[in-house]
């Protein structure tokens, strides 16, 4: 058996915390932007306009068939050139965090769109007609009648997807961004404590995601009642 060096882990905690902040930032940005974009995509997919529905379907299908690692590399490749050209940034500025935000937001939007679409389809057709009959506009009906009910139905799924998202942020390793995991690996390489660091990081993810999963179970029990 190996001995976990708690001393090394304790001294690494401040740096690990900085990494954890990066992971949480990516998760939060992707969660918020992803859900908003996901709602839009879901509505487009269900709209009566054929071209709009096709565009949304193509978007969702393409993003869901590419590995996240490739999406991250794509945006790491494209976003820097694009952002620098757009904003006239100096060529050596670090845009890895920005490209991670963009990549995760667009990627998660495809997954959230599917979840929200399922939610919208679970709302009875009569609700839309009732809203329109009351004199609400289409957008008002969607905003005040359909979406609140749809989101409530799929809340457990949205939280489950957020847990997956939190875990997936560790993949920013491939673009060299120092999130929680990459930070731990870097410290492990520097101090020769790779084993301690990997086990510690795994335990942290397990604790956080385990608690969130338990919350999902409670939510499910609540909604199914």
């Amino acid at each position: 058996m190996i001995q976990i060096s708690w001393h090394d882990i304790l001294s690494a905690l401040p740096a690990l915390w900085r990494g954890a902040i990066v992971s949480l930032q990516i998760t939060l940005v992707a969660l918020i932007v992803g859900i908003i974009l996901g709602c839009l995509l879901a509505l487009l997919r269900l709209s009566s306009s054929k071209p709009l529905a096709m565009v949304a379907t193509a978007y969702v299908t393409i993003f869901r068939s590419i590995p996240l690692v490739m999406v991250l590399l794509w945006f790491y490749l494209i976003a820097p050139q694009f952002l620098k050209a757009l904003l006239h940034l100096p060529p050596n500025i670090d845009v890895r965090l920005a490209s991670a935000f963009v990549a995760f937001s667009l990627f998660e939007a495809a997954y959230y769109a599917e979840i929200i679409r399922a939610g919208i389809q679970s709302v009875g057709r009569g609700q839309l007609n009732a809203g329109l009959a009351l004199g609400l506009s289409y957008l008002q009906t969607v905003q005040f009648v359909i979406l609140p009910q749809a989101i409530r139905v799929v809340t457990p799924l949205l939280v489950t997807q957020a847990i997956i998202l939190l875990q997936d942020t560790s993949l920013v390793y491939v673009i060299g961004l120092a999130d929680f995991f990459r930070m731990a690996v870097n410290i492990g390489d520097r101090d020769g404590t790779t084993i301690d660091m990997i086990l510690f990081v795994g335990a942290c993810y397990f604790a956080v995601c385990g608690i969130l999963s338990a919350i999902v179970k409670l939510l499910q029990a609540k909604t199914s009642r």
Partner: protein
Amino acid sequence: MSYQWDWGILFSPVATGEGSTYFDWLLSGFTVTLVLTLCTWVGATVIGVTLGVFRTVPNPACTVATSTYVAIFRNVPLIVQLFTWYFVVPEILPSAAGDWLKSFSPFNQFFACSLVCLSLFTSARICEQVRSAIDAIPVGQYNAGLAIGLTRFQVYRHVLLPVGFRIIVPPLTSEFVSVSKNSAVASTIGLAELSAQAQHLVDYTAHSYEAFIAVTAGYMIINLLTIILMRQVEKAVRIPGYLGAKG
């Protein structure tokens, strides 16, 4: 932005003088991803179905053991699991076993690690699908099986599993698609699979867009083949009278 497109670059000889083209690199990456994906399907299905059955057996020890397994493999990110298999496990093992693992060629070590990691990771998900499929079968079928004198093993073998296997085909399809996508993570420990070849090509040719488009298309081909294959399976084993079955 001006970018010089040159798809011919894929078919030009590599700069390392190996006598192959860049397309051959892509093809070898494609093959590695494909073989890894297929092997993972087999490993994950065997382990996942076994665990899924034990998850439904009314025995507290079985329930605790399998739900702990699922919780661990579902709540730790894939890349952390992969690094654990690659960096931590050989050190924790007795030194003789660790040395034996390290005696393999790097490629075999990368491949074996990725295969074990992906199989166990995916098996936890398949376990849950098998459990919900078996739970979806009316309990009366189980009781009826016992009532006509079958043992519990026989009930699983002849009643629950034949139905359960057919119910899980659609969710299994999306799990199988995920396997090839998840296999891209293996590039982080050095396995020269498809996404690793994309970065390899960018380093050598500076034609990043062509390389990335070709690799992205490679993943789409694998996923499309998976979906077509599983749709055939679904059609072949579909139970008449169930939702989604025609006639």
